[in-house]
């Protein structure tokens, strides 16, 4: 592939040198570029988006090809091989990514090696330095200043263009349940949803319908967000992220930083696991050790800052960190479940557990009931939980459908009370016409991005990237492709993530004239065919 492209480029250059008079011979044509995107069937939005970009870029005088690719192949090409000019992909807005650590890390030069999260290869030492500084900064205000500064720093370089944030549009049956609050990036199927829902109909069990199901419900093997969305309902964590995404004490009653690398956690008293055994500080320490000893890589990034965990009192656990970590409470403590030591201690190879042998004993607000693969999952409300008085439902049932169409029919006929996943665009108006259904739209802090390969011409030139960004009609993408249900992107920290988002950033509005001016200023011009040369 690369070979062919080089040959083509040089033969064009050669031909140009022959035809053009000596004065213009110094000008080299800008090499053609290829945009990788998803196939139309996988995601029509990213597919069409690529063509909107192609159209405007060709108008600027660039030779652009759009290559749609099967999704996994695309991921492989982009992340593992880094063999691309420019690629359209996305990051989903998982709740732990509301902490700026993850998304800011996608521009860290130390993540530019193959397989890591910065395939574009942005390399800015000043940015890296600030990245380390914010990761260590415990003072949340001071950390915010650094995070804002980082966004200001990278934006003019546009190593990546955040195309848009797509709204998550979900619906629930208002004749069955009320007090249904959607959470950014999570929709209605958040960890709070089931705890807040109040029945108004006959059924007191909340029924969720979704086309996705867990890969498995083994807390040491699940590698999908759908596994954890379910498991977090029956496992407690030390800290939970509030609907406003602030860490609130949960199984912990106190989290104190003794110094930069020593965090002392006080465990709530009187908690029990669903099998009646008490939740002890030893269980917490065991869980962290168990995860760190296992080869379960899904939590690796959460556990990275932890050096050791000790029980330092009846209900006290002390975490020793390898280096200061600002995201320790928001990410690490809020994501690692508390497992019962007496159940797991003897399991040597937890990743190889077959589905029937997987323990489901947690201490959470709900108790695991059953999981029939491809069909059904259910949990019942835990009357002994410290939060039990606040919970109005008797349990939660999750009905698994083959596709979004099945889910919508079930919602329409009252078989389920809410959708776990976004509706198809065609279903939204139908839901809006149905008086029994309430449609909820929440902005996403995940994003679809256009990543330049900064190692390749012509994207190694910042002026070129700036001009090309101005030539992306992102407003049109939102209006036409998302039917207005979304927001044009700015920085990698989404506007909905108000606390961390820097609102005073260069916006790169769609402006072809400004794009041309930017190019001219950088010494680009156009040949007689209107193609860009430099």
């Amino acid at each position: 592939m690369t070979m062919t492209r080089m040959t083509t480029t040089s033969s064009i250059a050669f031909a140009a040198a022959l035809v053009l008079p000596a004065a213009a011979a110094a000008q080299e044509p800008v090499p053609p570029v290829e945009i990788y995107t998803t196939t139309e069937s996988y995601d029509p939005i990213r597919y069409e988006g690529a063509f909107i970009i192609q159209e405007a870029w060709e108008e600027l005088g660039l030779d652009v090809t759009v290559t749609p690719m099967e999704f996994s192949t695309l991921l492989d090409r982009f992340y593992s091989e880094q063999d691309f000019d420019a690629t359209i992909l996305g990051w989903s807005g998982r709740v732990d990514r509301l902490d700026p650590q993850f998304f800011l890390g996608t521009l860290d030069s130390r993540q530019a090696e193959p397989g890591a999260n910065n395939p574009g290869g942005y390399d800015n030492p000043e940015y890296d330095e600030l990245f380390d500084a914010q990761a260590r900064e415990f003072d949340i205000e001071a950390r915010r200043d650094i995070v804002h500064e980082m966004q200001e720093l990278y934006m003019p370089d546009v190593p990546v263009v955040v195309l848009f944030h797509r709204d998550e549009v979900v619906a629930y049956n208002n004749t069955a349940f009320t007090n249904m609050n959607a959470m950014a990036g999570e929709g209605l199927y958040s960890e709070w949803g089931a705890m807040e829902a109040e029945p108004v109909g006959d059924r007191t069990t909340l029924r969720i319908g979704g086309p996705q199901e867990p890969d498995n419900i083994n807390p040491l093997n699940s590698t999908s967000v759908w596994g954890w969305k379910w498991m977090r309902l029956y496992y407690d964590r030390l800290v939970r992220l509030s609907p406003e995404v602030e860490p609130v004490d949960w199984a912990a009653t106190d989290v104190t930083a003794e110094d930069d690398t020593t965090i002392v956690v006080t465990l709530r008293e009187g908690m029990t696991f669903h099998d009646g055994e008490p939740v002890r500080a030893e269980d917490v320490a065991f869980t962290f050790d168990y995860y760190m000893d296992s080869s379960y890589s899904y939590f690796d990034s959460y556990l990275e800052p932890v050096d050791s965990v000790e029980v330092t009192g009846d209900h006290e656990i002390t975490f020793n960190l390898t280096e200061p970590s600002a995201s320790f409470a928001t990410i690490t403590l809020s994501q690692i479940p508390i497992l019962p030591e007496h159940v797991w201690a003897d399991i040597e190879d937890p990743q190889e557990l077959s589905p029937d042998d997987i323990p489901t004993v947690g201490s959470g607000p709900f108790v695991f009931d059953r999981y029939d693969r491809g069909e059904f999952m259910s949990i019942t409300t835990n009357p002994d939980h410290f939060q039990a008085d606040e919970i109005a439902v008797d349990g939660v049932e999750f009905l698994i459908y083959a596709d979004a169409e099945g889910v919508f029919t079930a919602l329409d006929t009252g078989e389920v009370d809410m959708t776990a996943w976004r509706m198809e665009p065609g279903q939204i108006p139908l839901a809006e016409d149905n008086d029994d259904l309430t449609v909820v739209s929440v902005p996403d802090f995940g994003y679809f991005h256009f990543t330049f390969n900064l190692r390749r011409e012509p994207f190694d030139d910042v002026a070129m990237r700036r001009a090309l960004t101005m030539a992306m009609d992102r407003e049109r993408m939102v209006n036409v492709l998302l039917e207005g249900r979304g927001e044009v992107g700015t920085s990698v920290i989404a506007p909905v993530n108000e606390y961390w988002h820097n609102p005073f950033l260069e916006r790169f509005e769609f402006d072809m004239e400004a794009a041309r001016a930017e190019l001219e200023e950088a010494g680009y011009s156009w040949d007689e065919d209107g193609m860009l040369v430099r």
Partner: protein
Amino acid sequence: MSRRNYLIRRVIQAIFSLWVIATILFFLFRLGLPDPTAALITEGLNAEQRAAVRAQFGLEDPLWRQYLLYLWNAVQGDFGLSFANRAPVASVVWERLANTMVLMIPAIVLAYVIGVPLGAWLSWKRGTGTDTGGIALGLMFRSAPPFWTGMIVILVLGVWLSAFPTSGMRTLPYDADGFLDKIFTLDFLHHLILPALVVALFYLGSPLLIMRNTMLEVYGEDFIEMARAKGLPERRILYNHAARNALLPVVTQLAVTIGLAAGGQVAVEGVFSWPGLGREIFRAVGTSDFPLAQASFLVLAAFIITLNLLVDILYTALDPRVTFQ
């Protein structure tokens, strides 16, 4: 050649075919499908962490070793563990296959029970409006995509009339001691009707048209002339003499249909959220779950090979002129 030698030869052939298919499947998936851990990138796993997952799946070993291990285990009936949930794939495949067959067999039987006599009857009425109408109807259902028919049926009978459930095999949740306990219930029958109807309508066209056309050929035969000359009633000529002789191609078609049915009508299983093998295969291929995909396709192949063998044997019973030569 004796019947016994013939059978032994056919069985050896079948085993050889299975080995070839197993080999093709193994390499096809590993070389053709994307890395099963590619999707983990979007979960934020780096190259090293993904390599650990690959090692867990046994994919870091040299390919030839994976292949030999796979063959050795397969001979012992062990098809490995699903990448997704570490379930033994053999049990997953059997359970899903049973779910699929319990939908497909009644539907196909229904299609043939209606289609064969209807085809015979249409041939009798050849050239009339009834014939034209019947052919048109059969062709229409045969060409209409089942997911579309399914959606219409769901909308009318499921949503508007609320007469039938629109998804799944049973009202959820349900408890069942094994497969038979699951299906010998009214609730299951209630769930079966809509998808089975859609599948039956789709399959109806084949026996109908094949029967009709073969019948027309048979009518030209001398023995029909003979039967008429004997003064037998038309009805008896039609069903006892002509139809029996026209059955051969229909039986072949039935065997092929049942063989392919093991893979399920993915579209129907999707529209009705039926937990069948088709949906499982779709998921397995989509997530590069090699062990599950291999086992599923291998079972399908075994199914088709076995049915073909059975049909060849059945032929000798249906038509004594067919011999083992």
